[in-house]
């Protein structure tokens, strides 16, 4: 082409891959070059057509169900080992869980080392919990079963989550039960009990953890995460309330579940 501009640079610009200075430079040139303008238009047309005509293929409901079922088989809670098929053993989720637990330990060690170096977020569980909490605050995501009646919420978990934690209403203490939800993380369907405290939503996650890898309390992106453990269940309360309010709910739940071993 008569225009000296190389096509791949123009395409890099079109793809948003050019640094700011080169982009500004190229924009000046495009302003005066009909050829490059036409080429950009062509690129845009091609993209529009591809997205419009080929971008709407969706996984079929059958595939969706098949994958969901396969995932459920992966995340069988208790008794996990007894139910493992030979094929699943070959796939060795136990091995992966071991690796994951090991990594968790490494992550804790790493966080100690890098404490003063950089605010690295090392335990992916923290991100999962915070993400799940933030997502829950978006409209229509907070609650799957809306009820202030713990006798409604608890049985709901039995069919929808891999754990069925004790559910309480502490309305008198200022922590109103508003409902329950199932969230998928740590390779299982965690049960989430949702409380409201004043204007704050508190999500209390619970999930099975056989590796006794309970993280310490932490604050991520402004959200407090309080962890505790009862039996083989890990709990995590996430909220933007103050620590004191969160600790108060933690001790209420512990008392109610009859666990006073950890103050």
């Amino acid at each position, binding site marked *: 082409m008569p225009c000296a501009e190389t096509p791949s640079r123009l*395409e890099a610009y079109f793809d948003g891959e050019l640094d700011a200075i080169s982009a500004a430079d190229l924009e000046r040139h495009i302003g005066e070059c009909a050829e490059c303008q036409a080429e950009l238009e062509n690129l845009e047309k091609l993209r529009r*057509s591809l997205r419009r005509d*080929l971008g709407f293929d969706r996984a079929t409901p059958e*595939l969706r169900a098949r994958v969901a079922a396969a*995932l459920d088989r*992966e995340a069988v809670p208790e008794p996990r080992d007894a139910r493992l098929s030979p094929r699943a053993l070959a796939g060795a989720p136990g091995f992966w869980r071991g690796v994951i637990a090991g990594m968790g330990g490494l992550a804790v060690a790493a966080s100690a080392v890098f404490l003063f170096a950089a605010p690295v977020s090392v335990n*992916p569980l923290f991100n999962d919990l915070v*993400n799940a909490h933030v997502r829950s605050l978006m409209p229509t995501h907070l609650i799957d079963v809306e009820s202030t009646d713990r006798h409604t919420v608890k049985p709901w978990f039995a069919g929808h989550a891999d754990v069925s934690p004790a559910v309480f209403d502490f309305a008198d203490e200022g922590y109103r039960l508003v409902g329950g939800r199932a969230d998928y993380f740590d390779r299982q369907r965690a049960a989430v009990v949702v409380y409201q405290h004043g204007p704050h939503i508190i999500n209390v996650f619970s999930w099975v953890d056989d590796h006794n890898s309970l993280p310490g309390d932490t604050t991520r992106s402004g959200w407090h995460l309080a962890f505790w453990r009862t039996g083989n269940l890990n709990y995590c309360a996430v909220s933007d309330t103050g620590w004191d309010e969160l600790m108060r709910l933690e001790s209420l739940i512990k008392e109610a579940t009859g666990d006073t071993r950890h103050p």
Partner: protein
Amino acid sequence: MPHLDAAYRFARWLTRSPSDADDVVQEAILRAYRSFEGLRGSDAKAWLLTIVKNCHRTIAAQARGRGFVPLPQETDERDGHAMVATTAGPEATSMRRDEARTLARLMASLPAEHREVLILREIEELDYREIAAVAQIPIGTVMSRLARARAALKERWLAELEGEPDAVR
């Protein structure tokens, strides 16, 4: 299941058969969930598509090992037809559907490596770095391959339009 649709679309173009694509996607999602990183972070889509690609390779290699491999012909028109979304919106006119079919057919006629970068860039909207990771090629190769792929698709598209003076260019 985040990015299931993207995984499926990508697998469809890799395998060219719906049932093979289903197998690849299921295997890929299981692998993704079993592995440490999980489906999180901004790179989750690219990461899952990388696993899709690896699964496809493994499964294709196993099929070859067993001796039955229906290698698709590079320019099989039926492939293209199969790729067009069947659930077109109400606004889709027959002309639009024709155009979509043509585009799918032309895509199917491209070399697999061209098709791959086009899908990843234009439909899945991955950036060059992510495409490099999924396709397992250097970034420089992503750029040149993408440029060649776009040129090739455009050339075929223009050739298609010849003899159709009414068609929009």
